[in-house]
């Protein structure tokens, strides 16, 4: 089975480009050029140089000794939290800003949930001297205040999305409307492996550096390139796509996805798309989607702004449907507890999104010799206020 996008951007039955005609010229321009541009020598050279010197790659693959003892398997952490700006998001924004430059665009827009993608976009815009506008749901502006301040300090304009659930989905709607209104000079840097083709595939390729590094790093540690499992949290699915990419066609590698169950999968306040969703169309692609029987998109809930999204990228819908990946979901409480455990066993405070991946041990028992690589997608600095309130730390 093929787990990557075909020429039209389909992963099995999922993907495609369901966009209004207003977006067609921009999306088509990108579709025709993205592969050619990103594999040009000059692009690759600049991309890799920036990942090395500016982002600080390769990010370490760290053997988590105490966590391994606790959970009875061999756990490695892929330290995307150590990237400049504190999460995996920057791998994609570096790639897309180089793409935007080559397409002659001068104005950048983005959506953000947790603010990590917004910060990573504002950062590369500062680096390249480009105008930057970030759409963010009003609710997320309130719960991710440090990232809002960072974006402003980096020179970006943060525009609140005030419609619907006032979270990531609505910020994405506003960004798409901006792109419709500014069809000539603007590039939209989507922050996850979602959206119309070619976005899911392009974002996945930029993030695939994660699994490319895991392979040679694990070889150094364990003498083999393939772990028994790779684990990642899924909002739209970009850190997961990057973590899985080079293992998709390696059947001995188990692929594990952890979604946000919010207050419980059946509580009515959840973002566990694979459990609650049906095939539908959101933000230009056909994918698993939380919706009413009437086809209205429902409002998700998660304590973590970055996972508070009613869909998943089309690659993940296909991994779920085909059975290639195992899907689990972790509640707010499980994710917070896992974040606290990681902090106290390994001295690493993760983003709450990332905490969901670490809650896998509540749901799955691994064997003693299993090598389990977890995507430590981001650090928890932005979430301190939520941690303080939740654990009554102040």
């Amino acid at each position: 089975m093929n787990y990557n996008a075909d020429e039209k951007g389909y992963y099995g039955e999922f993907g495609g480009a369901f966009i209004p005609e207003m977006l067609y010229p921009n999306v088509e321009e990108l579709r025709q050029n993205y592969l050619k541009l990103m594999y040009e020598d000059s692009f690759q050279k600049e991309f890799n140089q920036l990942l090395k010197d500016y982002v600080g790659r390769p990010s370490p693959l760290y053997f988590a000794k105490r966590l391994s003892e606790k959970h009875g398997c061999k756990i490695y952490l892929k330290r995307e939290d150590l990237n400049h700006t504190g999460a995996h998001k920057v791998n994609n924004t570096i790639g897309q800003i180089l793409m935007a430059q080559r397409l002659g665009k001068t104005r950048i827009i983005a959506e953000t949930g947790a603010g990590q993608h917004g910060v990573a976009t504002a950062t590369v815009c500062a680096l390249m001297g480009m105008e930057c506008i970030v759409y963010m749901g009003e609710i997320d502006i309130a719960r991710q205040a440090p990232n809002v301040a960072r974006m402003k300090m980096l020179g970006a304009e943060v525009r609140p999305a005030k419609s619907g659930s006032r979270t990531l989905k609505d910020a994405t709607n506003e960004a798409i409307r901006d792109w419709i209104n500014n069809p000539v000079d603007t590039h939209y840097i989507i922050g996850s492996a979602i959206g119309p083709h070619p976005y899911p595939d392009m974002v996945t390729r930029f993030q695939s550096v994660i699994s490319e590094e895991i392979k040679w790093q694990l070889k150094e540690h364990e003498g083999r390139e393939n772990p028994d499992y790779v684990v990642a949290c899924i909002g739209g699915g970009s850190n997961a796509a990057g973590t899985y990419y080079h293992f998709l066609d390696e059947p001995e590698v188990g692929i594990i996805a952890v979604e946000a169950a919010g207050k419980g999968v059946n509580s009515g306040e959840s973002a566990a798309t694979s459990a609650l969703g049906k095939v539908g169309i959101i933000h230009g692609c056909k994918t698993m989607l939380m919706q009413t029987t009437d086809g209205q998109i429902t409002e998700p809930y998660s304590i973590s702004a970055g996972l508070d999204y009613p869909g998943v990228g089309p690659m993940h819908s296909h991994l779920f449907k085909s059975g290639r990946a195992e899907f689990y979901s972790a509640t707010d409480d499980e994710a917070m507890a896992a974040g606290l455990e990681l902090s106290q066993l390994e001295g690493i405070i993760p983003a709450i999104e990332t905490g969901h991946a670490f809650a896998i041990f509540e749901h799955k028992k691994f064997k003693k010799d299993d090598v389990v690589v977890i995507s430590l997608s981001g650090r928890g600095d932005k979430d301190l206020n939520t941690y303080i309130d939740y654990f009554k730390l102040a």
Partner: protein
Amino acid sequence: MSNRITTKLQEDKKLLSIYFTAGYPALNDTVQIIQDLEKNGVDMIEIGLPFSDPLADGPTIQESSTAALKNGMTTEILFNQLKNIRKTVSIPLIIMGYFNPMLQYGVEAFCKKCQEIGIDGLILPDLPLDVYQEDYEAIFKKYELINVFLITPQTSDIRIRQIDDASNGFIYMVSSASVTGSKSGFGQEQENYFERIAAMNLKNPQIVGFGIKDEETFQQATKTAKGAIIGSAFIKHLTAKGTNSVAEFVKTIR
């Protein structure tokens, strides 16, 4: 294929088409609004099936859609409201909505229902040309529905020709690079665009939409095009003046 849209397009006049969101201001206003629009000389109606995430729409239609959904509007309820509409209304009726609600209803079931009711066409901004042609054109044709495609000032001539070939009613000409309801008047740029399209001598007539709000913009848009569609301005009027003010609105246009 002869349907009410093609017949209407042959009339020797500029067409005024009005969009409104079904279920707004109140859930059961739909039929009354349609009847009043016809009574006051409107040529064609786009009935908006509300969607939670209307990407191509500005704040006015977003808000009317949210309100309609809060009022309880669903695809099934809309079809029920329209079930006897052809007993009283004879102008062309088009359903305009996003693709996901139609997909969930079942594309074929949706089209079948449209034909039973006497709906003449569909406008689905996020159903792209290639997907339509590969997967759905046969179904639309079976139920004698005209599918209306959009073009914008950025659409290339080659693509406009493709869309013209695929169309069998009219082409929805989006006036400017924008979501609905956001332009204030037309300038030189629009005039050039209108003239460029007119000079292409397309097989299908064009009806201009987005940013038409009064007599002046209606006149400008229909100088070269066959007609114009008013949406946000009509909804704003309904919000301010209520559902009994349809006649008053139409008089301000022509």
